[in-house]
């Protein structure tokens, strides 16, 4: 009876495309982070070994507001500080100490979308996505020398959301965001310390990055009164940072050749 009960509960469509009520959402993500080295410098570039990688849990809270045809979604997220491991190419480390390497990522996002089309069960919205991303990465090399990078970055880009209603309870959701990080709108700091913990080098930097985010999820309202969504999110970020804001890679202080894969569970209410 317990197992069958959910099938008798009508899934309530709580997607705000069909309702004017503001909605909250909470989600938990299992985040896989891989940061590649720059194996080939000229375009098309190639990322390769060594790779820095981490896995951690991230939490996100969101709030969606509808005004007429316009939908605003505000989200804030943060991952638990993760321990980084290095892979030199054969599964072995040879680059970093086992302890002390951390990666932390947190962000705020605003999605502004408008109706794009409605065709049978398929619904599309499009608009803009903007926000802030904060990243901190601390590397402790085998010698005990360290490099810490911290940056806060503003981004802006187009956003596309698709939803297909399989039934009144089940929906497939997909989305695509492209984020452009302009060097004039972000700031970072790099500090390198030698094995005696003396500062060997420090510099500010301004990044020029490009990020794409693909989402694919399945939402169901049959197990709980409010829909639960399960999905995967592919988050790719590439670019470089120079001392001065620049679109040219002439004075690279830092770079991001990152691939993130998130598995998420979202609850809307």
């Amino acid at each position: 009876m317990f197992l069958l009960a959910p099938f008798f509960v009508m899934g309530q469509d709580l997607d705000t495309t069909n309702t004017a009520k503001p909605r909250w959402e909470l989600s938990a993500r299992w985040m896989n982070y891989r940061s590649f080295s720059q194996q080939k410098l000229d375009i098309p570039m190639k990322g390769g070994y060594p790779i820095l990688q981490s896995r951690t849990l991230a939490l996100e809270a969101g709030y969606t507001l509808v005004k007429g045809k316009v939908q605003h979604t505000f989200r804030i997220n943060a991952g638990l500080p993760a321990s980084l491991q290095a892979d030199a190419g054969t599964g072995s480390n040879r680059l970093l100490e086992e302890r002390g390497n951390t990666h932390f990522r947190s962000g705020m996002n605003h999605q502004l979308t408008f109706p794009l089309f409605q065709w049978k069960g398929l619904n599309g919205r499009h608009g803009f996505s903007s926000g802030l991303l904060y990243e901190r990465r601390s590397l402790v090399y085998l010698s005990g020398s360290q490099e810490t990078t911290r940056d806060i970055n503003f981004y802006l880009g187009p956003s596309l959301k698709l939803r297909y209603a399989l039934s009144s309870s089940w929906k497939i959701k997909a989305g695509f965001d492209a984020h452009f990080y302009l060097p004039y709108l972000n700031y970072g700091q790099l500090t390198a310390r030698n094995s005696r913990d003396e500062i060997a080098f420090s510099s500010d930097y301004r990044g020029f990055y490009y990020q794409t985010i693909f989402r694919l999820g399945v939402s169901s309202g049959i197990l709980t009164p409010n829909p639960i969504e399960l999905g995967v999110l592919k988050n790719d970020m590439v670019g470089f940072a120079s001392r001065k804001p620049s679109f040219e890679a002439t004075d690279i202080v830092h770079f991001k050749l990152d691939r993130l894969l998130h598995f998420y569970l979202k609850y809307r209410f």
Partner: protein
Amino acid sequence: MNRKQIMKNWFLQRPMWIFPGLLLAFASCTDFIIEMDPQDQWKVLDSGKIVLHYRPSGFSSSPSPDLDEARTIVRNQNIYYRAIQDSVQVSFEDKVLVYLFNDDEAEKLIGTNTGGHAIPKFNSFYFAYMPNRRPVTDQYHIENPIVGSHELVHVITHRALGYPESKMMSEGYAMWLDGLYGGYHIEDIIRKYRDEEPEKLMDPNQLLTESIDKESVYYPNCGIFTRFLIASYGLEEINRLFTCPADRFKKAFQEVTGESWDSMSRKYDRYLEKL
């Protein structure tokens, strides 16, 4: 209204549709900028401070280094590793990861099959295996080095002294400490430029502004100039200028050495005449 007209009206009513459509088409992923292609078929030789990754025998139609060559490369890189630290007077104790690609894959995977490049943040450099290099004995008395010290200098200096903003200092240190370009000693190249092709002899201003960016001209000039700076003004002083931006370099040079840039340039002219 036929189907074509319906479609046309539909698009006209929704001009914004084009916006995400185009972006999806052109920017659907980051792979058009960079492809992640981690190569994992390596043999690994880890000795001293060097970890050499090289291709196994028969990996491609180009030859791979055999074990004896791999041992020679690692032994030589360990010699360079100590010599670079002695020359630059910096302490660096991390292992350096060397990725040696075969000749027929290097162009595609690292962008060159005549050299390499370094990623100091990852204590790494990528290099093309060139079994048929021009025979030469380098300044460390190593005969026919398969992998020179140039990229190793980048890794050690960038990690120990910082990321240089000027190409003059970054390549200058690497060329000074490697001493070779294309299998020729850089002082031989500069003597030839001085005597036969004076338009290829670069003065300090030209080096700072990179007025000639052709590598075969710029690199040897950089190396000789760095050697002159260190011999004339001291290693400690020039190390302090390693990360100095090009637009502040002249002023910083005077502050550090007590000599004006113009005065130094005249001395450098005389140095080249006597080379």
